[in-house]
């Protein structure tokens, strides 16, 4: 009984707590990274005052958000206005339930060591051998990719509801743009993922990474086009520059969160950055070999295996986030018609073509 409780409730709950805590910290420091990096791209310094080189700036910002007055506009739909940030934040965090941070046997040693203090050797071994307990992920479901796509789509609802409930022009326009953009890029994103799914033959993120391990190659090299499409559509999905039309400051003040302030604004903010991390993590798992080291097929790079898989995973996620911010510092914003044109006329057909060619090649040669 206690064994089942441990495997299916206590250990996953601990993992969830750790992931949520680390994720919140990561999001906070992602904002600092963004400000610093963009400052340096513009030959400025960025935040320097709070802590050494501004290292405590995220904490100061968070405190400021918490202490600000909680304003609900008089004509706003108070209930929807209040829950909209949560609707957009919860899916952003929920996706991390299936993100494989490490291999299925990642926590085996840790579990053996900690549990041996409380339990007898046989039970400890059984729990440590169980992949649900010892895996470097909260859960491994066989429809993980589908889960990610569907749950992250719920986040759009938060944006739309927030824009609608504000009862103000700019947020409504921002929300409309945002929904149009997210819906249209979601299609191309899905198609770019299908290419990988065809090659991997599985919807489970863990299995996709394991397949990359078996074939000794990252799927970027098998599906380069799909990766580029995935990344571009990921930019659009997370409302990042050059696709940040929903919150185009020069046109729409702040977009859907114009009327938001204080803590509720910070929830939207968290959700946006959490989505960035989500897209990067999913991209790493699908295309960049998850927890695998670079070039898994080259034997003479064996010393890279000494670094644990989690570090490789987080390193790759960091790299993608760096590119996210780097792009923001480089590119100007698209016009709305350009955005739609690229989405429907270029990315979608190319992604579909990629799927068809991949499927054809797989049928003909394998």
């Amino acid at each position, binding site marked *: 009984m206690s064994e089942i409780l441990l495997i299916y409730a206590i250990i996953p709950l601990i993992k969830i707590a750790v992931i949520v805590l680390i994720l919140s910290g990561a999001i906070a420091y992602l904002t600092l990274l963004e400000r610093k990096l963009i400052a340096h791209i513009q030959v*400025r310094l960025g935040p320097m005052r709070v802590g050494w080189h501004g290292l405590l700036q995220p904490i100061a910002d968070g405190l400021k958000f918490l202490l600000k007055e909680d304003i609900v506009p008089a004509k706003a739909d108070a209930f929807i206005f209040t829950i909209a940030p949560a609707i957009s934040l919860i899916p952003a965090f929920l996706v991390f339930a299936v993100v494989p941070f490490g291999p299925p046997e990642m926590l085996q040693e840790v579990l053996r060591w900690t549990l041996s203090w409380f339990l007898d050797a046989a039970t400890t071994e059984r729990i440590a051998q169980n992949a649900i307990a010892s895996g470097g992920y909260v859960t491994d479901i066989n429809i993980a990719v589908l889960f990610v796509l569907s749950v992250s789509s719920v986040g759009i609802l938060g944006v739309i509801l927030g824009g609608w409930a504000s009862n103000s022009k700019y947020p409504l326009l921002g929300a409309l743009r945002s929904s149009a953009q997210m819906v249209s890029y979601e299609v191309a994103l899905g198609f770019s993922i299908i290419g990988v799914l065809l090659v991997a033959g599985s919807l489970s993120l863990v299995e996709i990474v394991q397949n990359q391990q078996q074939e000794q190659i990252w799927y970027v090299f098998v599906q380069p086009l799909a990766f580029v499409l995935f990344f571009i559509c990921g930019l659009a999905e997370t409302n990042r520059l050059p696709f940040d039309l929903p919150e185009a400051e020069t046109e729409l003040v702040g977009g859907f969160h114009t009327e938001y302030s204080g803590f509720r604004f910070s929830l939207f903010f968290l959700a946006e950055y959490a989505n960035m991390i989500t897209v990067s993590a999913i991209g790493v798992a699908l295309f960049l070999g998850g927890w695998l080291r670079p070039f898994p097929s080259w034997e003479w790079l064996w010393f890279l295996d000494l670094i644990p898989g989690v570090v490789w995973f987080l390193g790759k996620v960091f790299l993608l986030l760096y590119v996210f911010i*780097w792009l923001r510092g480089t590119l100007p914003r698209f016009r709305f018609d350009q955005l739609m044109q690229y989405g429907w006329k270029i990315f979608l057909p190319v992604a579909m073509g990629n799927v068809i060619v991949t499927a054809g090649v797989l049928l003909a040669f394998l």
Partner: protein
Amino acid sequence: MMDFLRRIFFVDILKGLALTFRYTYRKVYTEQYPLEKPKLAERYKGAPRLNNDPVTGETLCIACDLCAEICPEDLIVVGSQRDPESRKKVLTHYTFDTSRCLFCGLCQEVCPTNAIELTQDFEIAAYDRRSMVWDRKRLEKGWDRIDFGKDYHR
């Protein structure tokens, strides 16, 4: 055809990325002003100072009134008294209104003894107008930079 290939492989975007990457690790231009003093040009003219003879410690000013005459803003007032024994003019008071000064440097150019000099100090803000009129004591003390130290500005 070349144009098409350029667009397909994002050549221009990659060029832009390379450019911003180069800038990312360049030396920054930002001067952290209160912590880090800016480098001033050699000819920079700032707060005035009334020089004393470095050996005797007596004022170099001979109260000739030339600086007051040439000043376009008429902001210098030189007060003098004739010494009854040596029959020489002796400086009694000297005021310099920094609130009206345009730092043209004519006074320092015209001064025959290099008594009045515009230094490189620029931190001469004050809380009220009256304290912007510097008297002889303040002028002779000269470069009175208040260094708040590193912690003051944090």
